[in-house]
């Protein structure tokens, strides 16, 4: 039996987890999404008063590869070297969930109807959650671009939003992937070299040190939170299976004869049920809370990497500038190709200063965004915890009530 998911999800404009200004001149959201066997189709919906667009409101259908194309075009654009490029959304990954659904389908014969239905519901809910998350990630990316004063004017971005045919950007082939790999190796080696250069500017020196450490710690926290979530999920899965197993146990057909327990142990039986139910609620809830924290950490892992990339580009420009200075001095000393050296030096100087200026503002904005996002999420996390603690308390009290009633 095949359990491919082909669901149509209608999504309302969501409260994104990054604090952004939305204004009437350009509003972008993902109004709809369709999950097919291998791919997800996002409906990108734009509302704009800008003159560049033919209409005020329009929609196109885009796939993940097209988002990546857009992101890469920003990264490769020299003019945007001085900006933090919003991190690309992660690839939609339903493999694990699909595998579980498949296994469930295969094992259908070995469990009762109720167990099967329950498990199926759980897995479908999980699939839906992953789906919603990937849509949100793609939407956040677009909103960040739309909110950025310079990036929102980018031509590729407008094409992405408006052109209602397929953009024909296939995924990278093997050769291109290999090129990327080498580029990254070179970049990281270069990055180490460049990082060693001490910056005259205190602001940037401080930022460099801070970002490096922060990025590493976020990476560690993100990894640990993922591990924690995985354990929580395994425990929750176990609890679900136990709960459905106990459910079957409660039916008269299964349980005609019994623990020849005295009534005090029957009560402990009721207690066991309460405990299982509690665990069930708590496990699902805890998973939701974990996800909130984990998503936040993952997002800032990517953002802090983007900020690091910006600093790298600036350092690179600084090194180029210093090299151009040295070349100019040498040319003047030898009195050869002076004009060429001068123009080259001026270009490098201009580039470096432009990057420095915008970088400063970008990094300050990054800080503000980060603090706001963490605050919002931590507050929501605390509120969720309170709500569920209250729910647990209620459940325990009602169990106690039933027990007291029975004796």
């Amino acid at each position: 039996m095949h359990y491919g998911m082909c669901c149509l999800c209608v999504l309302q404009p969501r409260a994104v987890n990054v604090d952004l200004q939305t204004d009437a001149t350009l509003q972008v959201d993902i109004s709809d999404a369709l999950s097919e066997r291998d791919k997800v189709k996002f409906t990108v919906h734009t509302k704009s008063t800008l003159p560049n667009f033919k209409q005020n409101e329009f929609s196109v259908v885009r796939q993940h590869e097209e988002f990546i194309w857009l992101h890469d075009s920003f990264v490769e654009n020299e003019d945007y070297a001085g900006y933090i490029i919003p991190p690309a959304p992660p690839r939609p990954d339903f493999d694990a969930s699909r595998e579980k659904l498949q296994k469930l389908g295969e094992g259908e014969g070995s469990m009762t109807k109720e167990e099967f239905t329950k498990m199926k519901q759980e897995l479908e809910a999980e699939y839906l959650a992953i789906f919603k998350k990937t849509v949100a990630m793609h939407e956040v990316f677009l909103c960040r671009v739309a909110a950025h004063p310079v990036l929102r004017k980018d031509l590729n971005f407008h094409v992405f939003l408006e052109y209602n045919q397929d953009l024909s950007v296939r995924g990278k082939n093997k050769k291109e992937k290999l090129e990327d790999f080498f580029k990254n190796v070179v970049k990281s080696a270069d990055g180490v070299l460049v990082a060693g250069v001490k910056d005259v500017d205190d602001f940037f020196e401080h930022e460099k040190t801070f970002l490096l450490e922060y990025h590493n710690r976020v990476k560690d926290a993100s990894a640990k939170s993922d591990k924690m979530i995985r354990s929580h999920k395994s425990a929750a899965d176990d609890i679900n299976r136990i709960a459905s197993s106990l459910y079957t146990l409660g039916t008269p057909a299964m349980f005609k004869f019994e623990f020849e327990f005295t009534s005090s142990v029957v009560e402990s039986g009721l207690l066991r049920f309460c405990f299982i139910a509690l665990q069930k609620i708590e496990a699902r809830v805890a998973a939701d809370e974990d996800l909130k924290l984990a998503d936040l950490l993952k997002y800032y892992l990517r953002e802090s990497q983007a900020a690091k990339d910006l600093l790298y580009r600036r350092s690179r420009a600084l090194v180029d500038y210093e090299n151009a200075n040295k070349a100019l001095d040498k040319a003047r000393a030898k009195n050869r190709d002076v004009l060429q050296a001068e123009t080259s030096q001026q270009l490098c100087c201009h580039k470096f200063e432009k990057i420095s200026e915008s970088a400063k503002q970008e990094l300050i904005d990054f800080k503000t965004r980060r603090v706001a996002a963490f605050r919002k999420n931590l507050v929501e996390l605390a509120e969720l915890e309170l709500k569920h603690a209250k729910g647990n308390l209620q459940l325990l009290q009602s169990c106690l009530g039933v027990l007291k009633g029975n004796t």
Partner: protein
Amino acid sequence: MNAYMAYKVSTQTTLAMFRNKTFTVRRRFSDFLGLYEKLSEKHGPNGFIVPPPPEKSILGMTKVKVGKDDSSAADFVERRRGALERYLQRVVNHPSLLQDPDVREFLEREELPRAVSTQALSGAGFLKMINKATDAVSKMTIKMNESDVWFEEKLQEVESADQHFRKLHTLVESLVIHRKELSLNTASFAKSAAMLGSAEDNTALSRALSQLAEVEDKMEQLHQDQAANDTFSFAELIADFIRLLGAVRGSFDQRMKAWQRWQDAQAMLQKKRETEAKLLWANKPDKLQLAKEEIAEWEAKVTQYERDFERVSATVRKEVIRFELIKYWEAFLPEAKAIA
């Protein structure tokens, strides 16, 4: 070192057969096993469901003997105490077993002679015994022609319950492992979050993150450890019940054995009759006398075994019915459904 753990067994009773109304004795774990062995030998073959003894645990006991000074040793002793109590309750709640002088002696007598050869009676050993009996039954020469469909149904129920509980037990054990894992991972996450908090240069956020780490650390760890313990106790209750189901199966097997004995005796009787017929034809008067004696002997045996079989069947039937306490579960069921 020959230290051992002694458990205090206190009885309160109004029954006439005991010397006093309240009394206390000290018993070792092997004493309980010895009691089981005696009861099983005497009453098992008659079709009684003899309550199974608690698990032997080398690891747990070693921790206690070595004097390990943490909660795990104390937990182990407490769990064992609970299991032993459950065991005794089942024994004394059984109207026939309570009449057994060995039970009375166990509860009353100051000094009990040391039980020997209880090696085979660990939890695993017990189940092995039951399984061997079941194998013997399945190798029966003549397949039992079940005249009474009630027994067939009940055995079916026992076996399906056994399967179900074993599955449940595996699930619960898996949960224990995952909860322990979760406890460890939460602790390491809390540390990591604290580190993140200290790297954060916005002071308010830094403070908030550090507090989050602290809360996560304290609360979650405690919570998960507790849950792991609860789950472990739950697993033990289930294992206990699986052993009990094993005892029920054992009684069914005893009935089968009784039946087999009867059938074998009938077959033997048939053979003896054939021998007599042959001798009559061959005209050997002295051997004939012997043959007639043997026939009489086997006829008696057949009658005896048939009566035994009926008796054992009746006992098994009574025992199983005593087990069924629908009324508790019917009251319980709506709650259970609501929660699950």
